[in-house]
């Protein structure tokens, strides 16, 4: 959560996460380089540069595969949410590993001619008209550029500056990047593999990404359709709410509203966290504050404001009772607008004073 920006907001969880990640990268590289030459059929590696290039390339693919599995896993099963928490550090590390792979390639295959090595990389193979022998390097270059864009725009400043929807659209490049990596491998190293272990690992990883993402997309499709157009939208029966938790409703314009029951009173805020548009309605209220399940940002559900000194705000919504049905006003209040909670029949309101 921002007050003043600092380079990295470390905490114990992030140190732990990053330590495991770095240990995993080191272990992967060590196993690749020293334990499995026969298994992965790279015993014919000509020199250390090529051997290292293959190790870092394979490591980048595995890291990218894991990153792309975390999102749908967390959507399908909340127990994977802790892996989502610090995924950005994972992404930055992946970009560095991919950059190292590119460095080994560039400084070995293209470094000893009279022409510029970057020109050489683009010029060495121009057989764009055929599949066999296609210049697979272009897919690697494109994927690396995507990863660098994602890594260099991962600081929280970019989220606030670009806004979460623009930032998310930009970071959809991860899907183009992964396809491009698959093309880079399929038309590159896969053409030369005589041992099928690497082929099987590659197909298994890419297959897992495809299956998990399609499953997560399919599960989201099953959610309730948008409510009919109208000024007030039905949320649920008043007896259906559970203390400390929310019900999520889609408005006619596609926005989602999270309606929370807190101490016998209902309050409604936008379901999208101001940080990364995480699903606030899946969070739980503790001490009047709902915590975003993605990165822990907190908001007072009555005002949509983060507790001081933090400055994040989300829109709030007006509520009313129509018989036993709780309804929400389809027009949002500006972010941070205090709304008097709606007292449910038979409930004794506690502490409903407006914050100073």
């Amino acid at each position, binding site marked *: 959560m921002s007050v003043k920006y600092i*380079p990295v907001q470390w905490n114990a969880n992030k140190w732990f996460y990053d330590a495991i990640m770095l240990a995993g990268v080191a272990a992967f590289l060590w196993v690749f380089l020293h334990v499995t030459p026969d298994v992965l059929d790279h015993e014919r590696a000509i020199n250390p540069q090529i051997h290292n290039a293959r190790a870092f390339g394979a490591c980048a693919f595995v890291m990218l595969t894991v990153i792309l599995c975390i999102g749908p896993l967390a959507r399908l099963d909340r127990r994977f949410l802790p892996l989502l928490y610090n995924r950005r550090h994972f992404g930055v590390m992946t970009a560095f590993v991919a950059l190292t792979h590119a460095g080994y390639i560039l400084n070995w295959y293209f470094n000893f001619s009279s*022409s510029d090595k970057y020109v050489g990389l683009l*010029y060495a193979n121009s057989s764009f008209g055929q599949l066999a022998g296609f210049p697979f390097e272009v897919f690697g270059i494109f994927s690396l550029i995507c990863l660098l864009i994602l890594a260099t725009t991962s600081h929280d*400043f970019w989220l606030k500056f670009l806004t979460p929807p623009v930032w998310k659209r930009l970071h959809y490049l991860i899907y183009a990047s992964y*396809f491009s990596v698959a093309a880079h491998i*399929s038309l590159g190293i896969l053409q030369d593999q005589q041992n099928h272990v690497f082929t099987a690992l590659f197909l298994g990883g890419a297959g897992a990404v495809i299956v998990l*993402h399609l499953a997560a997309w399919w599960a*989201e499709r099953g959610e309730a359709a948008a409510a009919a157009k109208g000024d007030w939208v039905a949320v649920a029966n008043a007896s259906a709410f559970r203390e400390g938790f929310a019900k999520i409703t889609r408005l006619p314009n596609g926005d989602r509203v999270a309606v929370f029951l807190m101490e016998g009173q209902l309050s409604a805020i936008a*379901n999208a966290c101001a940080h990364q548009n995480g699903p606030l309605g899946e969070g739980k209220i503790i001490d009047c504050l709902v915590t975003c399940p993605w990165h822990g940002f907190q908001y007072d559900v009555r005002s949509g404001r983060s507790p001081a000194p933090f400055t994040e705000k989300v829109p709030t919504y007006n509520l009313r009772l129509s018989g036993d049905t709780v309804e929400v006003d389809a027009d949002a209040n500006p972010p941070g607008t205090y709304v008097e909670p709606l007292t449910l029949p038979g409930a004794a309101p506690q502490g409903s004073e407006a914050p100073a």
Partner: protein
Amino acid sequence: MDIAQAIVMALQGWGIIGALVAAAFLTVGIDRIDEDARGAYIFRPLLIPGVLMIWPLVLWRWWRIETQAAPWAARYRPVRASYGLAVIAMSAGIIAIVIAGLSVRQTWPADAVPVQLSEGTDG
């Protein structure tokens, strides 16, 4: 070679413009549009690579914030509709390229016994 050189030169030009944008944005612009950045300087060098990569987007957002042209509600509208499209496109693309790659894969006669096709010249 000409095209390759032109691409490299275009990328260098992109980087030079990006550096100019970064210099202006990180010394003047960022203080004007983000209160959380005022008085915070150590994190700014971290933003330079990002500005170099996406400087047109930076200029666009800078202008939108300065002119207050963006509706506030847009910030709270998650990108969900295009997720399915992105996933289906990625999945179909991967399946197609893997099949294409495997279909043109050639066997390498590494284990074939070498055959001398003609007499040597030494001797």
